[in-house]
Each structure stands twice: as structure tokens, then as C-alpha cells.
């Protein structure tokens, strides 16, 4: 009775701390299956934890708790046989034939060392599609998962599939989303982000408002030529684009990362600064420098938006370029709608005396509100 009671309490305490229960990782294996256009062969890279292989194949021959490369290497055939016995690719109702494509290697994952198998599946007729049945380790660990990255023949982006005991048989879609499809998808996302992320629009507008004017003796005069205005616009937009492209890429590739609160607050601050500058005109000739400097920060904002969308493995570059292009297209749409109207209105007193200063003040106020929200967790009425 006492032992039992003791046990209950231990259990009770642990249950009431359910979070205490999962320090290590559950068992997963990682597969990359890649098709080749014009061929019925599939290249498979399969990473299986040495610890799992030891559990079923007893690799640790001397039982000292340490696996040496020798202990693993000499069992390579057993490992391959065990693995391919639990994975079946089939086309047209017939199992594809397994071949070894290279010697077994190793790789590190977050929870230890994995054996890396390089295999080739030779399939027959693909007309009726391709199916996969996965059954590795389910008999000894039903919580095991096979995490598959599937790259269809001719495809660039991979499609993630999760195989579990309850879903051990799935079809592999042979029609790849083409590179163009992936690119198009991210271009659309980029355009949407510019249109829905008002902060980037407002920043750009604050820089563009004075582009059709020139500063003469502390007040604004209409620009004399369209060409001059367009060059001004071009300089600002190009500087902004270059800057945010650089930081977007660096952030997405994981070279640089900044806390999102800092990024979001600084973006708001950049709008305040740009808008107020229109009133004082202290930076008039070198607005492109300002566009470049703050563009660097806006790039981090784009990066977190892109990360929220999810990045396709294998087509990271495509996603990045597509998203960036989308952002450009969205930006260009704003510029080409705004600049002609502004140029047309530039000679009016309304534009110079009212629209520009009051517009700038409104933009600055909105951005100030955002800044307070983002930097100090201020809970506003909106």
C-alpha cells in the first residue's frame, strides 16, 4: 500500500506538471524523395536515428552504451535491409525495386546522430500514380513518425508529408508545382503584403510627397520638369528597394536576426521621421539616403512576413525572389498611381500649402500611434 501510495503521489505531481514530460524529442525519421523528369527512378535520402536502429538491431555489440563508427558501419547491410523492408514505393500496383545509391553515412540532427541511407527506387509504369507505404518502427514505437519531403519530377519546391501509424499509406502527387507556379504564388504574397502592410505604403508616400516639389528658401516650389521629379522618385524607390532586398535576404537566410518588437517600432519611427522631415525639409537633397537607411529596417519586417507564410525547402531562393518581386510590383503600383496625380497637382497652392504638410502630419500621427503601441505595448482605442 505504501509503495503504491508513493507512486500515486509521484505520478500526481508529474501529471500536474504535464510539461515536465517531454524533454527529448520523440522518434522521427527524415526522408527526402526526389523524382527526375523523364524517368521512373526516385532518389531517396533517408535519415534514421542511430538510437532507434540500436533499439531494433542491437548495434551496440559490446553493450558499453557507446556506438562507434565501426559498430555502425559493419551493420550497414542489415540497416539498409531493415529500412527498405519497412518502406514501399509502388507504381501501378507493383512495388518499386530498391537499390543502394551510395555508402551509408551519418548526419547530426537536434536529438543525436542519424544514419543516412542513399537509395534509389526503380519503378515501372507511373501512369496510374505513385504510392508510398511506411512502416518503420511502428511495431516498437507507435508514436514514431516518418517526415517526408517529396519533390515531384521536374519540381523545385518540396511538399511535406507526415507518415504515422494511422496514416501509413499515402499517394505521392506526381504533378509538380512548376517553378513558375511557386514564383507566382510568392509574387502574389509580396504584392498583398505591401497592400495590407500600411506602414510600408505610408513610409513610401512620405518620401514621395515632396518628390514633385523643390525646396526654395525654406518653402516648397513646384518642380520645373517631370524628368526631374521622376529621377527623384526613381532614386528614392531604388534605394528603398535595394536596402530592403538586402536585409530581407540576410534575415531569411538566417545570417542576421533582430527582435521583432525593435523592428516594428523602428519601422513606425521611420515613418514619423520621414513625414516630419517634409515639414522642416532638413533632408531634401538626399532623401534617397534616408530611404536606404530605413529600407534596411523595413527589410526585416518583410522577412518576418515571409517567414509567417512558410518557406519551401529547396525553393527558398525562388520564394525570396518572388516575394521581393511582389513587393516591387506592389510598390510600383503605388508609385505610378500617386506620382502623376501629385505632379499634376504640384503647381496648386492646395498641394503645397495643405495637402503636403497636413498629409505629412496625419501620417506622422498615425505612425506615432503605431510606435507607442509597438514600443511600449500601449493598448490604444483601435
Amino acid at each position, binding site marked *: 500500500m505504501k509503495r503504491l501510495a508513493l507512486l500515486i503521489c509521484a505520478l500526481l505531481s508529474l501529471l500536474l506538471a504535464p510539461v515536465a514530460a*517531454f524533454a527529448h524529442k*520523440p522518434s522521427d525519421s527524415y526522408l527526402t524523395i526526389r523524382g527526375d523528369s523523364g524517368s521512373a527512378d526516385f532518389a531517396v535520402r533517408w535519415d534514421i536515428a542511430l538510437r532507434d536502429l*540500436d533499439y531494433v538491431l542491437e548495434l551496440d555489440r559490446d553493450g558499453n552504451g*557507446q556506438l562507434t563508427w565501426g559498430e555502425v558501419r559493419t551493420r550497414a547491410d542489415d540497416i539498409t535491409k531493415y529500412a527498405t523492408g519497412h518502406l514501399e514505393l509502388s507504381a501501378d500496383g507493383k512495388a518499386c525495386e530498391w537499390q543502394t545509391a551510395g555508402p551509408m*553515412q551519418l548526419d547530426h540532427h537536434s536529438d543525436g546522430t542519424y544514419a543516412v541511407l542513399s537509395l534509389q527506387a526503380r519503378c515501372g509504369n507511373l501512369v496510374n500514380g505513385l504510392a508510398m507505404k511506411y512502416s518503420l518502427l511502428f511495431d*516498437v514505437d507507435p*508514436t514514431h513518425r516518418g517526415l517526408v519531403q517529396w519533390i515531384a519530377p521536374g519540381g523545385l519546391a518540396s511538399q511535406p508529408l507526415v507518415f504515422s501509424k494511422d496514416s501509413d499509406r499515402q499517394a505521392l502527387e506526381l504533378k509538380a508545382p512548376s517553378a513558375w507556379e511557386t514564383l507566382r504564388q510568392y509574387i502574389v504574397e509580396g504584392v498583398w503584403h505591401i497592400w495590407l502592410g500600411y506602414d510600408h505604403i505610408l513610409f513610401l508616400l512620405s518620401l514621395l510627397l515632396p518628390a514633385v516639389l523643390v525646396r526654395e528658401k525654406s518653402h516648397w516650389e513646384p518642380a520645373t520638369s517631370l524628368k526631374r521629379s521622376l529621377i527623384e522618385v526613381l532614386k528614392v524607390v531604388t534605394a528603398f528597394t535595394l536596402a530592403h532586398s538586402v536585409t530581407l535576404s540576410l534575415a531569411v537566410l538566417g545570417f542576421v536576426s533582430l527582435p521583432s518588437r525593435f523592428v516594428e517600432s523602428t519601422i513606425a519611427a521611420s515613418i514619423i521621421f520621414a513625414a516630419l522631415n517634409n515639414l522642416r525639409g532638413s533632408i531634401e537633397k538626399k532623401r534617397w539616403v534616408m530611404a536606404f537607411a530605413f529600407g534596411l529596417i523595413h527589410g526585416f519586417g518583410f522577412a518576418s512576413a515571409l517567414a509567417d507564410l512558410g518557406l519551401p525547402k529547396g525553393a527558398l*531562393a525562388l520564394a525570396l*525572389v518572388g516575394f*521581393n518581386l511582389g513587393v516591387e510590383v506592389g510598390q510600383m503600383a503605388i508609385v505610378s498611381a500617386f506620382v502623376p496625380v501629385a505632379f499634376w497637382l504640384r503647381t496648386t497652392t492646395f498641394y503645397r500649402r495643405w495637402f503636403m504638410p497636413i498629409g505629412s502630419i496625419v501620417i506622422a500621427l498615425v505612425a506615432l500611434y503605431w510606435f507607442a503601441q509597438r514600443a511600449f505595448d500601449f493598448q490604444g482605442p483601435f
Partner: protein
Amino acid sequence: MTPSKALALALLSGLLSALSPAVAAPFTPSTDAEVVERLPSTTNDPSVRRVDSLRKQLAARPDDVQLRLEIARRYFDMAMAQGDPRYVGYATAAIGPLDKLAPNDASFWLVRGLLEQYSHDFPNALKSLVKSSQLDPNAPEPVAWRAAIDMVQARYDDALGECTRLVPLADPIYAQGCTAYLKATTGHLKEAYDALSVDLASEKDVPPEARLWILTRLAEMSIRMQRPDEAEKNFKLALQSGVTDQFLLGAYSDFLLSQKRAGEVMTMLKDWERSDILLLRLALAGKMAGDSRAKGWADQLRDRFDAAMLRGDRLHEQEAARFELDVEGNAKKALDYASRNYTSQREPRDAEILLRSALAANNPKAAEPALDWLKLSGYEDPALASLAAQIATSGAKK
């Protein structure tokens, strides 16, 4: 597009495509003697060796119900002690055939219930535990576990029923602990604290695990009563009970962090990186102290949460929410995690992270389930009350 932009983009894409294949290259060790992996089954771990030998016996006697149950139970206890979810998988496999071999065995349904609650399948866990009690009405364990699940899911009337049922089945301290924890959560904090302190002092042979559990609860109650010195004293006593418990270490770390004592947290947890919940505390402490290891801890945690997401695990959501909010500073993501977590787990700290994320994300509506719970339960905690008040102010302005 200007030529310069086109050029820049071309350069960029060139750079990117050059970088992509560099990810994750496998390797071949240079000598056979190189140690490539350390297994948990070291020769000096008797529990691992014992269960290994039981497994070998099972190969010869696959229909031995008692053997299967013992293996499952041992693996489950190992999972709890070491926090390794693979053992839960092994335990599940061990009892796999028992719903056919031993459908009327109370222990089978108990173990099955334990494994189900581990993977947060609470409805099925409760069913299994009820079945276990029907088959063996005198067993205290299924009752205690049902009480615990009811508490996690904030069904306090049900929990009270189970605590009462526990009285004739086990040592009085368990029913007392069960009831006090329930009362402290439902508006009788001080009363429960005093009663449990007296119970603990008057009982002579309280097993160390029970002592630890009760002292941890008392410490948490002291914090809520704004008696930090008493909390410290209770935590210290719990640490001296001689039992290692990640939850105690986590709760004490949170207390230290709330007092800005990050250095002590980093010293106490220096060998605990393998535990997710304690790694989170290390990352928080490292960030608070500006420690050079903070980035490494945060990177490790990010990897683990990403891996869990990949396999579709939903076990880490409370920690993931705290990580997003307090380490990454991403309120929106934190709120996503906290909201999803709150659909299955409704303990006070699940409510707390939901309130904090909703506030940070400026989304008072998302906090409603936690606010409702706070009102209905009568839970007393100045920290939660202040969060609720802040949300009410911002919500009123909306």
C-alpha cells in the same frame, strides 16, 4: 525595373542558389573507433538493463500479460523521470495487444490511461481510467489521475468528486493534498494553504515525493499570497527532499526570474539543457542577464519547437507561447500558441500565458476564455488580476 535593380536581383538569386545546396551535408567518420552516438543504456543504469532483459523475455512469451504490463510501466516511469518521449512510444507498443489479450485487466486500463493523458488525449484517458476503477474499485491510482486531469482541464466539481473518492483508498495526505490544491484554485487560497501546512507538519511518514509535491504547491500559493520569503522557504525545503523534479526546478526558476535573480537560475540549471521546460528558463535567464550563452539556448529551443511542429506535435504549446512572447518578442505567434493550448489545457499558467499574449498582441477578445475562467473559478492571484484589469481597460476602449 532599373538595370541596377535587375543586376542586384540577379546577383542575389545567384548567391542564394549557391547557398542552398550547402545545407546539411552528411559525413563519414575517419576511423572505426570514433564514437558516433551515446546511447541511454549505459551499463551502470540498472533500470534500462532490467527493461531490456524483460523485452528479451517477451520475445519468447509474447502473450504474457503481466510481463507486457511491467515493461510498459517501467518505460512509462523512465519517461517521467528522464523526460524522454521515446519511452512512452515503447510503453504504448508493449500494451498494444492487451485490448485483445486482457480487456478485463484493471492495470491495463490504468497504464493505457496514463499513456493517453501523456499525449494529451484527455477524453480517452478519462474513459480508460474509469474503466480501470470499475474493474478494481479499490485502486487509488486511477482516481488520483482522474483528479489531476480534471484539474488540468478546470473541471473543479469533477475533481472534488475524485478527491473525495480518494479518502478511503489511500494515505490521508493524498486526499488532503488533492482537496487543498483544488480549494486553493477555487477561491479559498489562504484557508487551503493553512490546512495543507498543518497536514504536512502533523503527518509523520510523508514519503519524499509527496513532501516535494506539497511543498511546491505551498510555495506557489505563497507567491500568490504575496509572501515571497515564505515561498523561498518552501521551495528550499522542497529542493532538500532529495528527489529530482523538473517541475519543481521550473517553478523555482520562474520565482527567481520574477525577482530578477537570473544568475541563480543559470547556476541551478546548468546541466538541464536537455529538458525543454528548463531550457526555456535558461533562455529567459540568459536573456535577462545578457549572458553570452543566451543566443545558443534560444537557437536550441527554436530547433526543438520547429521539429515538434514538423511532426504535428501539440505537446509544447504553453512553452512555445512563452518562448515566442518572452524570447522572440513575437506577440502574434505567442497568442496563436497560447490560444490553441488553452483549448485542451486550462491550468492557471495556461491562462496566464493566454492573458499575457492577448495583451501584448492587443487582442483582448482572444483573452476571453481565460477571463471567464478567472471569474468563474474565483482563482486568487494578484498577477492574473492585474493582467485581467489591463485587458478590461483596453477592451473597454475598443
